[in-house]
């Protein structure tokens, strides 16, 4: 049986690129393996996937050296279309990869393209839909689907021709935590029950390492690590700390070894060390006492943004009405950092748009003390000119680009920037001269999904920037699906559901003990610990370990 995927000394250079995106890569994946591709932005993950399905070079052009073989078939001899029954790729943006208007037609298209017809076609469509749990969506128009549903339809269309090798390029980057969990569970089922070999490129590794048989980390287009998940975590801890998942990072900071890969392993490690369950952090009870909270509230500065009983309704395009916000109340104060969480369609973006005055509420009122700067979800929406420097006001452009680390790209076309660079430039477009480059920030800064497709390094930089804005007295509100980022950046979390605030409290109050809207560290330590970040959890683990030793409990060999 040939390997599912075999790369022999593969180098690939995009047309008109200065250097290769993949450099002398050799690897082999066996049948039924679940492989996670890790690495920062620009490390070559997407290019590897494109080469594996033949898009590079058949679609993108460029120069390929070496051989890529899928189930023994060389991509030099067959293009992605011919290889569709052997390998397929699901891209990041589900909207751009759905071609037809109806779900059934979308799944039929690849089968019809291969000449399948009649009862066989109908049966395959039904079976594919059943396998992916989307049978109830078959008669729906694509435009009525949510992001998660759309991604599952894209997955079904990709899998309809029953390829043995499934490649996915950050398929959860636009999904909320619930939809992302569902998609990953689906991939696990495909891998375990149907024997499909899965290669998954991801930035948020904590979500998918548990299911991985193997992790391949890329750096500058080369394979830097090819190991089991445990081996990868060990490698990352020594070579690339930003790739270490939060639970493993907490254990590493606490001095425990070996580092766990999954939440289950981390819990088991703590149990064996005799330190579970972990109690509340010192001082946490005091922080949570009602009278102290009341005192704090009385001392709190006045609100710079107040939304009172805000109702927003949309025409859904087919005559119905969608209520995006239902009597929502929210206040933001100077210097606050607030994370806005919730499922797709919970009303997060609408809330920010109401705050910025783009959307007028049907009922209720939004009052802001001064400007509200809003960075919308798609940074490309701000890129309107032909040179980066033209996007910013001339008097602050140079200073702002310097502060954003984009000075060397001043003359570049904004559309040639990477995702992370676009995001930084968009932030500059919104805040140049008022917090970035010069001036003070506006009283309220709202960011809508600013970490989409960002690697850990860029997220850390963004978190620092947000903190800097808050330090300058701006209230910063960030709508995000990235709970780990929310935990790092926000002091307060607001969870929306069905257009209402369902939880509003300190980050630890809201995130500790949740099922989906929670961090990996909180999952390991449980709600009692009130810790959501590795840096918060590590002292608790250390203290619990010390206490276990002091009370004479045996610390099991770890």
């Amino acid at each position, binding site marked *: 049986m040939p390997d599912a995927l075999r790369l022999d000394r593969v180098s690939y250079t995009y047309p008109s690129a200065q250097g290769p995106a993949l450099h002398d890569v050799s690897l082999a994946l066996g049948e039924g393996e679940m492989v996670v591709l890790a690495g920062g932005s620009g490390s070559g993950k997407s290019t590897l996937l494109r080469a594996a*399905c033949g*898009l590079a070079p*058949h*679609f993108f052009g460029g120069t390929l050296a070496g051989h890529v073989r899928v189930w023994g078939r060389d991509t030099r001899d067959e*293009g*992605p*279309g*011919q290889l*569709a029954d052997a390998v397929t*790729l699901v891209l990041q*943006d589900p*909207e*751009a*990869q*759905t*071609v*037809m*208007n109806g779900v*059934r*037609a979308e799944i039929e*298209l*690849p*089968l*019809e*393209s*291969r*000449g399948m*017809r*009649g*009862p066989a*076609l*109908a049966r395959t469509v039904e079976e594919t839909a059943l396998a992916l749990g989307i049978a109830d969506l078959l008669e729906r*128009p694509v435009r009525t689907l949510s992001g998660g549903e759309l991604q599952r339809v894209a997955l079904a269309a*990709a899998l309809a*021709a029953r390829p043995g090798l499934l490649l996915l390029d950050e398929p959860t980057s636009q999904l909320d935590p619930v939809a992302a969990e569902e998609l990953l569970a689906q991939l696990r089922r495909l891998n375990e029950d149907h024997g499909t070999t899965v290669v998954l490129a991801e930035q948020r590794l904590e979500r998918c390492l548990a299911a991985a048989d193997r992790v391949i980390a890329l750096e500058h287009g080369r394979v830097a690590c090819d190991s089991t998940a445990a081996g990868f975590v060990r490698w990352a801890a020594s070579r690339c700390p930003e790739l270490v998942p939060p639970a493993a990072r907490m254990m590493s900071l606490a001095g425990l070894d070996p580092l766990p890969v999954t939440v289950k392993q981390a819990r088991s490690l703590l149990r064996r060390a005799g330190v579970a369950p972990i109690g509340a952090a010192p001082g946490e009870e005091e922080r949570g006492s009602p009278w102290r909270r009341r005192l704090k509230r009385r001392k709190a500065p006045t609100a710079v943004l107040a939304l009172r009983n805000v109702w927003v309704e949309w*025409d859904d*395009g*087919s*005559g119905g009405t969608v209520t995006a916000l239902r009597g929502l109340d929210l206040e933001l104060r100077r210097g606050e950092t607030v994370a806005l969480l919730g499922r797709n369609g919970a009303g997060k973006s609408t809330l920010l*748009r109401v705050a*910025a005055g*783009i959307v007028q509420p049907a009922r209720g009122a939004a009052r802001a003390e001064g400007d509200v700067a809003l*960075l*919308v979800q798609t940074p*490309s*929406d*701000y*890129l*309107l*000119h032909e040179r980066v420097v*033209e*996007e*910013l*006001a001339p008097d602050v452009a140079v200073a702002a680009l310097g502060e954003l680390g984009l000075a060397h790209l001043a003359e570049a076309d904004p*559309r040639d920037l990477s995702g992370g660079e676009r995001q930084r430039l968009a932030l500059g*477009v*919104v805040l*140049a*001269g*008022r917090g970035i480059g010069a001036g003070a920030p506006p009283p309220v800064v709202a960011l809508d999904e600013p970490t989409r497709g960002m690697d850990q390094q860029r997220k850390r930089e963004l978190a620092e920037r947000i903190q800097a804005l808050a330090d300058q007295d701006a209230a910063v509100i960030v709508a995000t699906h990235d709970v780990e980022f929310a935990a790092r950046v926000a002091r307060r979390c607001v969870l929306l559901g069905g257009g209402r605030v369902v939880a509003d409290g300190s980050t630890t109050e809201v995130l500790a003990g949740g099922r989906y809207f929670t961090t990996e560290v909180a999952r390991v330590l449980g709600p009692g610990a009130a810790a959501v970040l590795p840096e918060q959890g590590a002292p608790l683990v250390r203290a619990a370990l010390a206490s276990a030793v002091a009370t004479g409990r045996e610390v099991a060999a770890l």
Partner: protein
Amino acid sequence: MSSFVPVFRPTGSALHAVRPGVAAAFALAPCVAALTFDHPGVLAAALACVVVTAAAARVGRELRRAARLAVPLALLVAAINPLVSREGLTLLARGPEVPLYGQLDLTLEAVVYGAVAALRVLVVVLAFAVCSAAVDPDDMLRGLRRVAPRSALTASLATRMVPLLARDAERLSEAYGLRAAGVGDGRLRKGAVVARALAAGGLERAMDTAAALELRGYALGTRRSGRAPRPWSADDVVFAIAATAMVAVAVGAAIAGIAAFDPYPMLRADRGPSEAAFALLLPALTVAPFALAVRRRGTLRHHGCHA
């Protein structure tokens, strides 16, 4: 802008139930009369056909949405003709002398002909709106694939992508308003800047879509639809006959010289029984297949069958 673009909405009407080619032909048949005749009575009848079709197919909401774009467009056409036309003898108002153009006169004939052109725009835009709302573009693609696969794909992608582009335009326009003060060179107007960004964004998305098509094997070039051929239903036949009849009546009337209309130099429109019959026949041919479908379904229910 996305709120102007009608999209397919299955309502279970008789028109939705017929094969896509027939449904499209029926929805667009009034355009033949509208494009062949200048007679206001015929154009009004063609507009009535479109409105009746929309009501009977239960896509009135989509029609109203399209009207939000079509009516201003028609009004613009109606306003421009009297200003640029120098024909007509019935003077309504005498305007100023315009350099290089001459005397700006407003004539009754130019006003009426402007209204005629506006009516024609309305009929064509709204007929296509009804067609978009009542014909499943995926079925249309299947039907067209055999004869014109690339055009079929283009049409299908357009129906999928046009609403997405309209939504992009809204987002870009919003983002433009969110830029920090003093941003931009101030020379380019917002519309031009947004249009350019829209084109660039559309091209980026097109790359992903093209890659997805490549991965799905569309380039393999199979032309036949995979679905089993669908037999002609009674509704298919009736709607096809009605569409053919509308086209035949319009062409026949044109050949016979019925409903002649000359706007210039003075208004002259035929107003005889032939014109009245022609103008009534078009809506009657529109109503007939829906009425027959309702009657047939009633009969089937009476006999305990499912329509």
